[in-house]
């Protein structure tokens, strides 16, 4: 079995191509940094790997380290360099580095469908001659050119032809030749190329040097002299000189191989979408629109219908059970536990489907990356890493992958802070709770929904500012966030994402929600002496009353709300099913008021996340003590914020 490695710049379409070649449905996002670990699949009997998007093989970031280590150590039989055809020059910089690795190389010009629109023509034949590697033009999003690509893959694997190495200026080449001629280079690890090793020695690449024995003094002196002479000649350090040389080669090839027509620039949406002041109101307006369409319009029609359907179903089960003399315990578990609990969560499926669909569209068209861009500025001000925005954007779906994606942040304190603030961003599981409260207490007031996101962002800002005050080290690091171009969302990507998220939600209703509904029903129907009692005298009520007084200042000091919060630790959707089993969604108004509903939503939004996310936090923080502080901070912050929000609402009304 032969191995293929997909590599290329971030957001050049590697994962889309990976999905096409393997027939899988890995997550694809129209913004950089989606792939942070390698993915594996099979195509035509070959093993294929999707590596994280990188700009170079210089090991600055964990993604670059991973990709470089993989290519050097695992020696794939073919490197498939995915090139964004509309960004040829920048992509060729990485191609130049890949060519130095001495593995067969296949250049894939992706996004050929956009070339005409951008006024670009590429001479693929000339590019192939100049790079010394075959070139295939495809459009991964449209699925064109794939048969030709597969044909070329087979050809490359059988021919095993190596690409041409880019040549630098004579002054640099002279030193490279001298170094290659030295015996010391014979000690390079297996699979490394002499020329590549010589360049690494000139660059004084720490990762490479650590893999080599100490050089003889004479050779070491020669390297130092060569570096000094290069510095004097070019007026820069050797690493920067090599970067410059590679860019010159890339510039030269791109200039010869492509013709760019000047296109007229029309209205630039980014002038608003990334504007310092206008971006936030625009984001809130877009989110308000998203919530209006999903929760307001679709939810307004479907939720009452589905509620009636499940109520009817429960009633029929009770009537049937009475007719056939089924024990009240069994009919109660089925109708008041399972159907009421699971049904209360399933009533939100249509509106969540629309919500996930709209969020996928926003992501795939490139708008989410703009949100990341405007938040990136804020992150830096707060002393967080620029990369912290990636977990925060992923967190709108689920906090677990979001927390885990924070591992690409190099600095420990920034990483830990990101792990702590990520659950403040409302995840999909919290949406049914917000939808429930908004539907019952604020019908028609859809401006409240985007405020939930704003509140989450405020919590991130406050935590960041506090951490900045307390942290004396104030680490900063560079992070390049490239804005992807706007595109018409791919129906396949959008459908896959929406379907996966919706099915995941339904699956949760069939597992954890079902189990917790049965447990909650039993606990709310029996006393500690196992006698069937009213809910108010039940075990659950007794347990709930122990913690309920804590929440009295927040306006929801009754046991049903407290117990729902506890079950929310298992999964946030459980809050809805628990309220449904213990109160009944139709009776919410007798327990909650507008101010306590808002306060309840705030507490759920900001308090510690579900057990799966807490376990992810533990994995990333790596210490029980830190986890305890994180959970205490989140819950304490949620308590104070809920109290303040309630006071503001009470004063305003």
């Amino acid at each position: 079995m032969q191995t293929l490695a997909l590599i290329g710049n971030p957001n050049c379409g590697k994962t889309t191509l990976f999905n096409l070649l393997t027939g899988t449905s890995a997550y694809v996002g129209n913004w950089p940094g989606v792939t942070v670990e390698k993915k594996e699949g099979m195509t035509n009997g070959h093993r294929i790997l999707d590596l994280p998007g990188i700009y170079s093989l210089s090991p600055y970031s964990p993604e670059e380290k991973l990709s470089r280590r993989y290519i050097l150590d695992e020696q794939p039989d073919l490197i498939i360099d995915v090139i964004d055809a509309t960004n040829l020059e920048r992509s060729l910089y990485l191609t130049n580095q890949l060519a130095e690795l001495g593995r067969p190389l296949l250049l894939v010009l992706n996004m050929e469908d956009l070339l005409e629109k951008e006024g670009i023509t590429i001479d693929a034949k000339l590019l192939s001659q100049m790079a010394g590697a075959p070139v295939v033009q495809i459009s991964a999003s449209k699925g064109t050119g794939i048969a030709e690509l597969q044909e070329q893959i087979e050809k490359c694997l059988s021919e095993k032809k190596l690409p041409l190495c880019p040549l630098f200026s004579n002054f640099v080449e002279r030193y490279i030749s001298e170094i290659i001629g030295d015996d010391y280079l014979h000690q390079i690890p297996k699979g490394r190329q002499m020329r590549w090793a010589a360049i690494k020695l000139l660059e004084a690449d720490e990762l490479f040097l650590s893999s080599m024995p100490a050089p003889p003094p004479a050779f070491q002196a020669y390297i130092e002299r060569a570096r000094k002479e290069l510095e004097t000649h070019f007026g820069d350090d050797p690493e920067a000189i090599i970067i410059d040389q590679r860019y010159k080669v890339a510039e030269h090839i791109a200039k010869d191989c492509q013709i760019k027509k000047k296109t007229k620039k029309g209205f630039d949406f980014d002038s608003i979408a990334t504007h310092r002041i206008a971006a936030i109101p625009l984001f809130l307006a877009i989110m308000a629109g998203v919530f209006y369409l999903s929760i307001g319009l679709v939810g307004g029609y479907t939720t009452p219908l589905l509620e009636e359907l499940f109520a009817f179903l429960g009633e029929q089960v009770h009537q049937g059970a009475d007719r056939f003399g089924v024990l009240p315990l069994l009919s109660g578990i089925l109708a008041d536990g399972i159907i009421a609990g699971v049904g209360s969560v399933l009533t939100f499926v249509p509106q969540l489907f629309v919500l996930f669909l709209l969020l996928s569209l926003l992501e795939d068209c490139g708008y989410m990356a703009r949100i990341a861009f405007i938040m990136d500025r804020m992150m830096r001000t707060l002393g967080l890493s620029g990369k912290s925005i990636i977990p925060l954007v992923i967190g709108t779906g689920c906090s677990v992958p979001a927390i885990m994606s924070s591992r690409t942040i190099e600095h420990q304190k920034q990483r830990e802070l990101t792990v702590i603030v990520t659950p403040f961003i409302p995840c999909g599981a919290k949406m049914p709770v917000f939808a429930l409260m908004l539907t019952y207490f604020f019908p028609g007031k859809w401006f409240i929904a985007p405020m939930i996101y704003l509140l989450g962002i405020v919590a991130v800002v406050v935590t960041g500012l506090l951490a900045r005050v307390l942290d004396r080290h104030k680490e900063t690091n560079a992070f390049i966030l490239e804005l992807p171009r706007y595109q018409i969302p791919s129906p396949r990507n959008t459908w896959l994402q929406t379907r996966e998220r919706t099915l995941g939600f339904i699956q949760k209703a069939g597992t954890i929600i079902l189990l917790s509904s049965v447990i909650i029903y039993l606990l709310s129907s029996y006393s500690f002496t196992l006698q069937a009692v009213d809910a108010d005298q039940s075990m659950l009520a007794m347990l709930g009353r122990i913690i309920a007084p804590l929440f009295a200042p927040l306006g929801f000091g009754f046991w049903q709300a407290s117990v729902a919060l506890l079950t929310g630790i298992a999964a946030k959707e459980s809050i809805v099913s628990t309220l449904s089993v213990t109160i009944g969604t139709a009776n919410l108004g007798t327990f909650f008021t507008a101010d306590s509903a808002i306060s309840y939503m705030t507490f759920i939004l900001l308090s510690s996340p579900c057990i799966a996310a807490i376990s992810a936090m533990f994995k990333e923080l790596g210490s029980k003590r830190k986890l305890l502080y994180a959970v205490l901070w989140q819950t304490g912050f949620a308590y104070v914020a809920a109290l303040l929000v309630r006071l503001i609402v009470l004063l305003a009304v």
Partner: protein
Amino acid sequence: MFIKIVANLVVASIILALLAFAFSLMVKQSKEESCASCSSKKRSACKGCQFADKCH
């Protein structure tokens, strides 16, 4: 009497089957280190949360 016993057995079996299904799915998810938000279909590249980018 017979109908009563059968009806109770049917309802009890439905409840047990649902609970067994939910429990087995949760065990499967936990074995895959899933966050319970991932689907575990055959052709899905998602194998739980081992890699953040594979999780939805």
